[in-house]
């Protein structure tokens, strides 16, 4: 059940009405939301609910067991077992085949031919998200940053709450569990903001991402037949596809959360207006990057220590982040590429130079800012080629295609719609630019007239209807 499907269009209003009908009883509300979340997840494949349950039981039990002991060794053992179970499940379903085939390939290069026994398991949707989501709780409990819960329903709801179940944002127990415990009352302004965010997310997904997807797929799938300039265009289309797709999904998730009275963590903050790569990573997939920062990078020493340690830590975090995205060397290379880009910034101590909003209080950026944003954007676009390619050979074929004489020819795409898609990208970026200091692109606080707001909503709906691309699934569901 995708957020932009008709099934979800039926599911959400029913859940919304029943959920608020029991607003006087938070336990009933949580119970109902848990049932709705399991129904939502089970709609995709009910068998994989068992993995959600396993993850919930393991981490809940770990919390309870840690509550009962003060012995550090025992607490560490509980945490280790819990991590082994959680990462074990993730490893089997997501990485087993990759490791087996990689080992076989490595040995065959040495002349030793082994028989690969792969499992060909279907990757359960959202497994990387809910594994990380849940582990944040256990680690925080271990670190005594958070009191473990005995409330089974609340904890199980925290693991599987349906707006976040498939593709995040990766929530923190410190943010979400307290919201689950307390009684929620309907907040009109929050719900209206949520509706706007859902609409904006739909626009990003269906108009920007889905249209870009058709063009990027054509260009990447037939990269050998296209000129260098066309491949650059393909990389640009993928750049907006992945942003529209994932941030659109996140917007919808946050919007649905607001309808239900929750405030989830912001996952994107206009990343393509970043002035350097460090700023990009503070604005892109924030929930995952802060997770890695808090639970991997800082425990490793972060940016403290010798330069060698900083280099090591930077590479570890980016390689792991790349690997998190999927069992493919292309993702690892993408992570390594970003580590290389990040290193000069962190080693020169300039990684926190741009923590404000670009051109704050101004309509236009300065020439310097414009150049910085353009340069960062080009670096990011190049990185997406590694991310999008099917394998390392494909990466090489795309890059060598780009850096050829045909780079200076007029780009062509053998399927229609590139001009209109570029026009929508331009409009989209303009709207994002105008709202770059806000939480989301369709925050209409400064428009007082309800008629004008209504016209904006209907125009967006009309655009989504007429210009929405072919129904593509969300990219991040595969992660």
């Amino acid at each position, binding site marked *: 059940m995708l957020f932009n499907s*008709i099934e979800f269009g039926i599911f959400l209003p029913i859940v919304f009405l029943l959920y*608020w009908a029991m607003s006087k009883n938070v336990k009933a509300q949580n119970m109902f939301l848990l049932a709705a979340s399991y129904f939502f997840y089970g709609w995709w494949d009910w068998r994989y609910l068992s993995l959600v349950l396993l993850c919930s039981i393991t981490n809940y039990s770990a919390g309870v067991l840690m509550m009962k002991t003060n012995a550090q060794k025992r607490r560490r053992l509980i945490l280790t077992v819990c991590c082994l179970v959680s990462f074990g499940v993730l490893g089997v379903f997501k990485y087993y085949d990759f490791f087996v085939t990689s080992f076989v390939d490595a040995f065959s290069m040495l002349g030793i031919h082994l028989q690969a026994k792969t499992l060909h398991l279907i990757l359960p949707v959202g497994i990387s998200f809910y594994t990380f989501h849940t582990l944040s709780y256990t680690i925080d409990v271990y670190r005594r940053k958070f009191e473990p819960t005995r409330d089974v329903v609340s904890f199980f709801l925290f693991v599987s709450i349906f707006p976040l179940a498939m593709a995040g944002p990766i929530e923190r127990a410190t943010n979400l569990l307290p919201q689950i415990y307390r009684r929620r009352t309907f907040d*009109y302004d929050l719900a209206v903001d949520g509706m706007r965010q859902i609409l904006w997310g739909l626009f990003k997904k269906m108009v920007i991402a889905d249209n870009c997807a058709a063009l990027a797929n054509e260009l990447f799938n037939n990269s050998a037949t296209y000129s260098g300039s066309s491949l650059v265009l393909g990389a640009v289309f993928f750049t907006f596809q992945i942003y529209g797709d994932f941030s659109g999904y996140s917007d919808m998730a946050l919007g649905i959360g607001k309808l239900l009275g929750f405030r989830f963590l912001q996952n994107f903050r206009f990343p393509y207006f970043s002035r350097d790569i460090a700023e990009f990573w503070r604005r892109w997939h924030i929930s995952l990057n802060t997770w890695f920062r808090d639970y991997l990078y800082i425990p490793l020493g972060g940016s403290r220590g010798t330069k060698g340690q900083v280099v090591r830590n930077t590479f570890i975090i980016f390689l792991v982040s790349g690997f998190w995205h999927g069992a493919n060397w292309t993702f690892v290379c993408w992570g390594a590429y970003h580590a290389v880009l990040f290193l000069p910034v962190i080693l020169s101590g300039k990684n926190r130079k741009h923590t404000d909003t670009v051109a704050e209080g101004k309509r236009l950026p300065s020439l310097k800012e414009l150049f910085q944003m353009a340069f960062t954007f080009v670096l990011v676009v190049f990185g997406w080629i590694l991310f999008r390619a099917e394998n390392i050979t494909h990466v090489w074929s795309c890059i060598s295609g780009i850096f050829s004489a045909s780079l200076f020819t007029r780009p062509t795409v053998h399927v229609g719609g590139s001009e209109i898609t570029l026009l929508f990208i331009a409009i989209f970026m303009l709207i994002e630019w105008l709202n770059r200091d806000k939480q989301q692109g369709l925050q209409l606080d400064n428009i007082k007239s309800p008629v004008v707001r209504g016209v904006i909503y209907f125009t967006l709906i009309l655009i989504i209807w007429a*210009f*929405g691309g072919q129904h593509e699934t969300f990219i991040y569901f595969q992660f």
Partner: protein
Amino acid sequence: MKKFLIKVSVYIVLLIAGAFTLQYILEKKIKQVNLDGQTWNIFSSKISSDVIISGNSRAADDFSPQILDSVLHINSYNFGMHGQPFPVQLVRFKLFEKYNQKPKLIIHSVDFFTLSQGYRFNMRQFSPYLHEDLLRDGLRKMGATEAELNIPLWFYASGWRLILEVFTRPSTPDFGHKGYVEKDLNWDGAKFDKVLSGDSLAAKREPEVVALFDSYLSYCKENDIQVILVYTPQYIKATEFTKNWDGEMQLYHDFAKKYDIPFLDYTHDAICNDITYFYNATHLNKKGAELFTLKLANDIKKNLPIKKKCVPLH
């Protein structure tokens, strides 16, 4: 909460009203412009032809009703539909029958694509007629969703090109000459060269559609509708490149034998060797279509007396 629900309800009502209005305007325009080069004027009950030419694009492009009429002194109409296999052709035939007089003769163009299942192709041409149950059932088999069939404007989602087209094209109440639009084009073998670089062409056949075709021929026989099966000329290399050719042809011969109807096979006619008669490997151009239709008309005149008297063209 109440304020929120009222506001959302108002928006929903406005959306639904807007959707129905826009749907009405779009459908009216689509009917006027004969989208996808198809004629759907069967609903107006104005077609008095008692000879119909049925089939896919090879029927649409290869048969000139004007030539058939002049040689055979009949009143024919070309109902060829681009890209549509038999299940959709049958829907159109049934709808024709519902709104017009029963035909006396059907010249049915068959080929290696006829007996395959319908798929989502040029679906938009059907959109103004979704109130027809026959069409709805046919579209379901082609893969149309319930949302497309029942929710206003859903059928036109992502359809900005369509909207642009229907509002910029001039109205064309009658399409071509009795359904036939001549293709004054020269040979373009680019696509076929690509096909030739592959393994082979394969005739597509679905048992369900074969059974449907059988029941259609049976219905025609029971209702005294004369049927002539015709395999129109195609470029000889395409024929030679089709791997299950003999089996496919045998099936049509078997049908002809079972229902005692003629099957005219032009796939080894002299036309097939000359690319100047084709615009691609499976479609005749104007020159080829005129020559072929003349041949067909003369063959019918000489060898196949039309059983029932058909109304001549006025």
